[in-house]
Structures are given as C-alpha cells and as structure tokens.
C-alpha cells in the first residue's frame, strides 16, 4: 500500500524525545555534581588556608574530652568518644522506644475508653504533650530536676528510690558475666516454646479442647530460664572456640577484606543484571528493552564497579592507632572482627558470676560531697531530661496512632463479633488488635525513627550522645566533614535498621492476611 509520509527526514536531535529525556537528566546531574565539586574545592582550599588537613588520623589522636556518662567517661581518642556517644544514643533510643510503646498504647486505648474520666485525662495528655516542642519539654524537665534538693550527708544510705538534683536513682537488676550464657538458655527456651505452642494449637484444632498454649509456653520458658540459671557455666566450652575463631581471623591476610567486599558487590550487580535479563525473556523470544531498562542495567553495573573500587581505595588508607601503630583500614576491620569474637568468647567465661544481680540504689560519700553510689540504677539529669521527655512526647503520637488504628478496624466489626458471640476481651484480643496492628505498624515505625533522631536533642542539655560528643570533637579538631559523615552514617544505619525491622513485621502481617 502506498503511504504518503509528509515529513520523512531524520528526526533532529533537539526534537528527539529520547535524546531530550536523557540529555536533560544528564545535564542536571552534571550541574549538581559540579556544584558540589566547586563547593568541596572551595572548602578544601579554605581548610588548607587555615592549616587544617583532612585525614582520619585525628580520630585516634588523644583528646581531652570528659564525658559525663557512658561506658567510658574518659575516652582516650575521638573514635572512642564517638563510640561512647553512639552507645548513649542507643541507650536512650532503645529504652525510650520500649517505654513510649507501652505508655502510648495504654493512653491510646484510654482515649477510646467508655470511662469518661479516663477518656478525658488521655485526651488532655495527648493534646498537651503533642503541641509543645520537644526541646522545650527537655529543658523544662531538666530545670525541674535541677531544682530538686541536693544530696546531703544525712542522705547517705540505701534506697529503693531517691531523687535529687544529681538525678534519679532506683533499685534495679544488673547483669554479670554469667548473663550471656544464661541468655543462650533463654533463647533456646523461646525456640522450644514456639514448637510447644504450635503443638498445643494442633491439639486444640484436633480435639477442640482449650489447649492453654500460653501457659505451656510460659512454663517452657521458666524451665529453661531456671535450668540456665544454674547450668550456664556448662557453656564455658564456647570460650576457646570463639577465641580460636578470633585467632583465625587475625591470621587471615588483610587483603581479603577488600577482595570479599568487591567480589560481593560485583557478583551482586552481575546477579541482578542476569535476573533482570531473565525477567525479560519470554517463550516468544527476548522482550525488547526500553531506554529505562538499559539505564537500570548500566546503573547496576556501574554501582557494582564503583563499590568494588571504593572497597580497594578505602582499605588502603593508613591510620595511626592510639598505641602508635600504623594500620590500613583493611587491617583495622580485620582487627575489629577478631576483637568481636574475642569479646564473645570472654562472655562465656566460667567465672562470670550470677547472671543477674539485684541491688538497691545508694548514696555514698565520695570526695567532699555525698553522691550516688554504683549500685542500683542512676539516671543522670541530662539522661532523665532527654529520656523522660522523649518517651512522653513519642507516647502521645503513638497513642493517636493506636487510637486511629483501633477505630479504623472496629467500625463494622463490632456487630459481626457480637453476632458470633465473642466475649469483649476475646473480641479485643482476637479481632481488633491483630487487624489494628497491621494498620498502626507503619506509622509507629515512623515514630520510632523520629524518636531515634530526636535523641540528638540531648545536645541541648549536654547529654553525651553522638551529636553532642561529635560537636565537641568538631570544635576541638576542626574536622567538620569526617564528623558530619560519621553522624550521617550512624543515623542512616540506625534508621535503616529500624525501618528494616518494621518492614519485616509488616510483610509478616501481610502474609497472614493472604
């Protein structure tokens, strides 16, 4: 058939949709990168003008930082101080998440309670706490604790609970060397408990009788914990095994570290590209790839190569340790892995003492003034201000989420459940909560992320978390970029881990749905 084509010349570039699409994207990318390069060069030239050099050695240089609390209050190096700060951040974040979840859930349910006064009090709590900036609350609680009376000589003694302008102390359990082997027993109990619960549910399905699964599981756990309490030294045979692994790691050539990382990156990219091509293969022949598809393939390949190259480049950088040794990054990573296994091995030592130790708080004379002793648990003023405010604040948000989730589910389900003849408690446990959980999980995960990031407000009350420690080091050494990168790495990793856990449960819930 004769077809007249009005214009049949080749499409000029500036009218080619595909060309324009990629040209515009690439030019924006180039301009953005150029912007950062210019900024970076300027920063470098300004730095060298002021005599500051960029290297990682500052991390291991001795510094005179004194931290008010943490696993090490007088760290010998910047990197050690940052590690202490990171631990302090995690301490607030983890305990805060647990406490905020419990309080928030209770208040959220209270907000829906048919009991008038409970309902009003919960509403008042949420509307007050949610609408005041967290930083104001932190400062306020700090001011309140500081205004408490100070410890005097008459206070010396042991207490279940004691508050003063030095913080809040209370009786608490602490763990000893025997804790970790004991936890292994408890973990085994949890695994066995899962089998037990499955078995009991099967019995219920087959016989129709109440199976008391939860009693059985609790019993299993108690048995394991009790046996472990006395039997934990039996696990001390693990100690030489882990030490052996540590020795083996130390003996491996350090060059293996970048090789393994690079191989993983390249193989990962290759595997991805392969499976991508596979997904385009059809019985009728190979599917045609669009330009976006090609971009994906090229991007995956490039990323693989870039990661591999970075692995080799970075692992070659040398760092002077606190002890004065010169090590490459690869060697340091190897050392870190070895130390980790050593630490694990030490945890199984037979002379660790009872797994848990209960002790009351104490006030003792130390130096010129009475202070809290080492027994029990002590919340310092900054820790209490940050932890308390952050917990109450996040709890208010969690309460609203829980309320929304339950409301969303219970619409229409109430009558259905009543028709089936479920008791109110059964209805809540079996119908509402599992469904509500699915709705509230993603937003609660978001609140966990917020809580984690909000711990950084500790800098306002000089709580030694990672941002506060980092900015102290930053002021001392002038090494802004590395510190900022460490912050970013820490928070991004933490955020990824939290969202990873939340996504895992979310997927699990979705599977149940199907």
């Amino acid at each position: 058939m004769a077809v007249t084509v009005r214009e049949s010349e080749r499409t000029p570039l500036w009218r080619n949709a595909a060309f324009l699409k990629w040209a515009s994207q690439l030019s924006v990318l180039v301009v953005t990168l150029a912007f950062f390069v210019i900024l970076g060069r300027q920063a470098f030239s300004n730095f060298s003008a002021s005599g500051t050099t960029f290297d990682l050695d500052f991390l291991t240089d001795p510094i005179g930082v004194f931290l008010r609390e943490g696993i090490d209050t007088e760290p010998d190096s910047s990197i050690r101080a940052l590690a202490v700060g990171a631990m302090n951040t995690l301490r607030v974040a983890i305990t805060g998440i647990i406490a905020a979840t419990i309080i928030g859930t209770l208040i959220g349910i209270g907000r829906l309670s048919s009991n008038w006064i409970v309902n009003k009090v919960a509403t008042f709590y949420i509307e007050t706490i949610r609408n005041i900036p967290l930083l104001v609350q932190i400062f306020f609680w700090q001011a309140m604790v500081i205004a408490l009376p100070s410890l005097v000589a008459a206070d010396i003694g042991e207490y279940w609970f004691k508050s003063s302008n030095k913080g809040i102390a209370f009786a608490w359990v602490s763990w000893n060397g025997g804790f970790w082997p004991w936890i292994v027993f408890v973990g085994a109990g949890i695994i066995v408990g899962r089998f037990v619960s499955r078995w009991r549910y099967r019995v219920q399905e087959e016989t129709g009788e109440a199976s008391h699964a939860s009693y059985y599981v609790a019993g299993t756990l108690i048995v394991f914990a009790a046996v472990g309490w006395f039997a934990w030294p039996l696990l001390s045979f693990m100690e030489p095994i882990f030490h052996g692994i540590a020795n083996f790691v130390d003996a491996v050539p350090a060059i293996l570290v970048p090789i393994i990382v690079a191989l993983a990156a390249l193989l990962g990219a290759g595997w991805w590209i392969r499976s991508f091509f596979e997904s385009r293969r059809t019985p009728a022949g190979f599917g045609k790839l669009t330009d976006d598809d090609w971009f994906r393939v090229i991007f995956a390949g490039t990323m693989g190569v870039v990661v591999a190259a970075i692995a080799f480049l970075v692992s070659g950088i040398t760092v002077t340790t606190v002890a004065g040794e010169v090590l490459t990054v690869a060697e340091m990573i190897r050392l870190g892995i070895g130390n980790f296994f050593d630490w694990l091995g030490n945890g199984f030592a037979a002379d660790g003492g009872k797994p848990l130790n209960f002790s009351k708080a104490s006030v003792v004379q130390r130096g010129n003034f009475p202070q809290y002793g080492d027994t029990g648990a002590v919340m310092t003023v900054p820790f209490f201000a940050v932890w308390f405010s952050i917990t109450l604040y996040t709890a208010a948000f969690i309460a609203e989420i829980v309320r929304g989730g339950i409301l969303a589910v219970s619409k229409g389900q109430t009558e259905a459940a009543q028709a089936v003849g479920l008791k109110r408690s059964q209805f809540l446990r079996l119908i509402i909560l599992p469904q509500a959980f699915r709705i509230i999980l993603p937003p609660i995960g978001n609140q966990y992320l917020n809580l984690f990031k909000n711990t950084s407000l500790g800098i306002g009350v000089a709580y030694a978390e990672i941002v506060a420690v980092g900015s102290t080091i930053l002021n001392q050494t002038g090494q802004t970029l590395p510190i900022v990168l460490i912050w970013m790495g820490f928070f991004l990793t933490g955020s990824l881990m939290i969202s990873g856990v939340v996504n895992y449960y979310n997927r699990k819930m979705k599977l149940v749905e199907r």
Partner: protein
Amino acid sequence: MTGNGNGDGAARGHTLGGPMIVSEDVKKWFGDFQALKGVTATVREREVVVVIGPSGSGKSTWIRCINRLEAHQEGTIIVDGLELTNDIKHIEKIRSEVGMVFQQFNLFPHLTVLDNITLAPQWVRKLPKAEAVDLGMELLERVGIPEQASKYPGQLSGGQQQRVAIARSLAMKPKIMLFDEPTSALDPEMIKEVLDVMKELALSGMTMIVVTHEMGFAKEVADRVMFFDYGTIVEEGTPEHFFTNPQHDRTKLFLSQIL
C-alpha cells in the same frame, strides 16, 4: 490486504478517503509480556472501525499506541502522513489531531465541565479564552448538555460525564477519534445516550476507531470490524460478513460467547 470493507462507506453514505492511520507490523512488550505481536492495519479517512476481542488481547494497547500513550517498540505507525517516532514535534501534532475517549471518562474533577473542555483549546491550540468558551458551549450543545456547563464532573451522571469527555476531545478539532470501551463503565440506561452521540459523530464523517463490546453499534455504524486476540488481528471484515460468516474458530467462539 484483504477484507478492507466495501470501500465506499455505504453504511453511512460517505466516501472513504485515503489512508489515515497506517499500522505496520507493530510490536509492543510490557516487561516479559508481549502485548502486540505485529499488528498490520490501515484505517482510511472517514472510516469507522470497530475493534472487538477478549480482554488482554491487545486491542486497547493498539489504539493507545496510535496517540502515543504507549510507545510501540517495533514496526511503523503513520498517522495522517506523520510517522510516530521519538520526534516530539510529530507526537505533539498527532496528539492534537487524534482525540481519545476513555472507559473511565477521566474528566478532571477539579475543573468545571466548561473548563474541562476549554483547557486544551486554550493552551494547545492557543485560542483566546472567549473563543474557547464559545467553542465549548457549542460542543456542549452538540452532545446535548449545555445546561451542565458550570457544574463539576462529580455532579454529573456517568452518561453525561462520557458525553462531556467526547465534547472535550472534539474541542481540539481532531481528524481522528479513538474510543477505548466508552460504554463499559456505564449503567445500561446511559449507554444509549453515549452511543447516540457517537453515531452522530460517525455520520458527520469522523474517522473513528472504537474498541467496544456493543455489537449493535458495530452492526449499525461500522464500516469494518476487527477481531483481536493474543496481540494480533485474527480476522476483519464488514459487519455483515463478520457477524454472519466468521472464518476463524476463535472468532466464532468469541462471538458465540458474547452474542
């Protein structure tokens, strides 16, 4: 090329013109799914083509390729003498010449009925606002709902919405109209009002490709019926020929299921 109709549009008393849409060996993949496996067809000026076929047979994909809502990956599509390539000038030109009506109407819910219609003339054909409004009211008269001009789409019935959608496409003064199952989302009592508008359009000499399951419409208005299955045209012919004497087993099976 066989079964190209009787060539004179006898059903509506129109003479068919030259080729308006030429599709040659058009292929299209979605990931590992090949939606079009070489579609070759020609639609002539003033011709009304009805496309039928089971869902997933590629009939919608084909007409969506004609105005580049989907990009075909192999083969040639020539619309009104312009080849559809990556050339944005051609794409713009073809889109302004080809109107399309969707199953779900796709009216813009935040604009009034009149604004829905005048938007494209104002910004694509660059008509002054007053002219665009005149045009819009004229088209609303044509589809029979001038009194609804200042309402929002959400306040109209499905049939009225689809008529607005047709008016909206006509506002661009297209040479070709594509209908993608225009009555499938409508209640039975509203189907007729939309089909009436489409018949009127066909009688006025518009080139039309209609994907539909309305066999009555096909018998009455179509110059040609195409049957799609598994990404190809299985059979085509005049309505009389097609409905009374289908050649292919799959066509027979399909017709026996829907008639």
